[in-house]
């Protein structure tokens, strides 16, 4: 039963680079969008708030699968511009998870105690200084655990790129291995699941380090944790 193990592992590993690329690309876009849209939702200008809110509700309110198929099949017809599958996937991951991340950023900024704002006003810091020097560094530390969950969801969401034929990990198993080894489904899929588990753990370790750094910069102690794995954030059950 395990004769083919090295072959299975090497075939699945061929998709590893694409899964990592899609996940990292998605993380970069999602992070940028989260910060921009999250802060825009707190803007004093109604128009900015409405635009950000519309983006967030549309991308959170529809399914990732619809978004993926839409960008891949519909957008080229409307614009005459076809994204290669990997980029279509990265775009959807970024836009979708950016919408969830925006809520995290908004929540974290709002959770910074009022006294901090008042202190800034008393010191007559400009709004930009206030954000950059005082509010964001504190909010940043609180954002990291929910972003850890979000990035793991994003990693899991990258499996969907199989649908638009990106040959990432899941595609390698489903379209390459399974067709030739129909009697070894258990082994193939257990291997795939272990690959994702390993990647999730890498994300968690990275975020834990970041969390410790951010806490140290603020002179806080890192939060005590009982479990090694990230705890679930409410309503972040996407992908």
């Amino acid at each position, binding site marked *: 039963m395990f004769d083919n193990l090295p072959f299975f592992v090497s075939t699945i590993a061929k998709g590893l680079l694409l899964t990592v690329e899609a996940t990292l690309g998605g993380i970069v876009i999602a992070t940028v969008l989260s910060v921009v849209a999250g802060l825009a939702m707190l803007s004093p200008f109604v128009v900015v708030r409405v635009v950000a809110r519309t983006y967030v509700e*549309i991308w959170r309110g529809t399914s990732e699968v619809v978004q993926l*198929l839409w960008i891949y099949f519909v957008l080229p017809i409307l614009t005459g511009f076809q994204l290669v599958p990997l980029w279509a996937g990265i775009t959807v991951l970024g836009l979708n998870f950016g919408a969830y991340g925006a809520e995290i950023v908004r929540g974290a900024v709002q959770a910074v105690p009022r006294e901090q704002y008042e202190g800034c006003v008393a010191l007559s810091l400009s709004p930009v200084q206030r954000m950059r020097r005082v509010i964001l560094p504190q909010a940043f530390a609180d954002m990291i655990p929910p972003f850890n969950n979000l990035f793991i969801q994003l990693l899991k969401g990258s*499996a969907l790129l*199989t649908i638009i034929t990106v040959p990432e990990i899941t595609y390698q198993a489903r379209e390459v291995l399974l067709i030739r080894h129909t009697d070894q489904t258990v082994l193939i899929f257990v291997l795939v699941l272990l690959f994702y588990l390993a990647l999730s753990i890498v994300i968690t370790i990275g975020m834990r380090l970041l969390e410790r750094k951010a806490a140290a910069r603020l002179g806080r102690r890192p939060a005590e944790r009982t479990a090694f794995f990230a705890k679930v954030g409410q309503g972040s059950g*996407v*992908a």
Partner: protein
Amino acid sequence: MNWSWDWNYAWSVLPSLGEGLVVTIQATVFGSLLAYVLGLVFALLRRSRFWLVRTIVWLFIEFVRSTPLLVQLFFLFFVLPDIGIRLSPLLTGVIGLGLHYATYTAEVYRAGIEGVPKGQWEAARALSLPAGRTWTAVILPQAIPRVLPALGNYTISMFKETPLLLTISVLDIVGAAYEVGSSSFRFVEPLTMAGILFLLLSYPSSLFVRWLERRFGIAH
């Protein structure tokens, strides 16, 4: 570009989308029920007296949560028939959704149970209620109402993930839209309508859950 939106075609795909919607709702409702029940079982097992049971359930929960639902669906779809269990694709999908989300609802129940004040346990003890009665008459009736909004959130998430079932040949809203699109080579109208349908259903539901949260919810 000489493309334009064709209203006649758009209306003509509505019946197929409607059939897909029925499947989506079936998957969401039964998947949620399974997740609610199994999640509670997992939450209780994680409080088991036996170290081994606690550890196995914990590892299972973390494993399922760290890996993609899509791969889990493939796993069930291809592995179950191999071990002699033949289920319809929809039922396989419901089991996949239910199991995956049970690992999330287990956390929700855990938070709800831990939120019940210690005095309630002590009072049950003082009245020498048996363990079963303590749970069914004292702890759970207080814990469950407070976790309902969080459970609702997961149902909405699940609703948005049911289109994954199209990969195991279940024709939900998106599966139906995709099929109509492939047979007529016009994807714009069906896929756009599918997206709008999702938005129309999930946005009001999430407003409702937010309202529930404000009224009954606990921060968890």
